[in-house]
């Protein structure tokens, strides 16, 4: 393995870690969401009734881990693989 190949692997690992952190920071959701919960502003009457703020359901499609980060991770792996082999063949050619 030459130094360029090492850079490719390290860069790919850093990007994959970044994707994982991004997924965790987005709530670590595995599946795509079909809706989301929005916290409602509490009304004066609800305050007087001693109630806490509620959530309302709103239909909204949000990609989850599987389609989202898996595709990005796949692209990173494919690009890293192509670069890895490109640099390998270049080195072989240089040797010849």
């Amino acid at each position, binding site marked *: 393995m030459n130094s360029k190949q090492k850079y490719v692997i390290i860069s790919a690992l850093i990007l994959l870690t970044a994707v994982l952190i991004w997924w965790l920071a987005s709530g*670590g959701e*595995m599946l795509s969401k079909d809706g989301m919960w929005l916290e409602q502003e509490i009304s004066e009457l609800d305050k*007087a009734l001693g109630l806490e703020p509620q959530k309302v*359901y709103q239909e909204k499609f949000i990609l989850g881990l599987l389609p989202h980060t898996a595709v990005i991770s796949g692209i990173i792996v494919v690009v890293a693989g192509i670069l890895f082999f490109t640099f390998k063949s270049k080195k072989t050619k240089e040797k010849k």
Partner: protein
Amino acid sequence: MNTIIKTLILLLAAVSMSFAQGFKVKATGEQTFNFEDKRNQVKFFSTTPLEDITGISNDVKGKVSLNVSDIKSLKGSITISVASIKTAIDLRDEHLRSENWLDADNYPEITFVIKKVGDIKILEDNRIETKITGDFTAHGVTKETIADVTLTYLDASEQTKQYAPGDLLGVQAKFNIALSDFEVENMIVGQKVADEIEITATLRGSNAK
């Protein structure tokens, strides 16, 4: 002799009345509240290192009655339909209703029936904090559960008419249950879904007939 017994009974009643804890509001006597407001909500919350899941039902029905001056007289029940629980992922909602989870076909409702009111703390004339013991039934299994509850009584006014005619009773309740206690056991419980689920109820009832 009869007079002495009658006096003793009256004295006992007067003493017990003086210890009764309840709301100090305009309304008096026995009141029955129906919980039919579409805004009423019961929330289920599960947290694991892998994922937080919130499930919400707005299909809440129930009725409670109480003597305004004696909160211990509170009785009644609250029910939600399993089919109405939404978690923001349709596929997960289907799983939740399936045989492996809450089995909505065979056990379509989740119910809390009030049994006992204890640890009463008067916060304001119209607000009481208490612990309510009740029978919680889910997945065909009934377990005694204690809920932390805050009850707020609002006499009918121009403001309360926004929600419903009559007096209003606000109920804010919170308690935890273990899914394993209700025979909801599968590979995902304890991993993606916590065994312990926090349940919160935010309810508005009206005594209008």
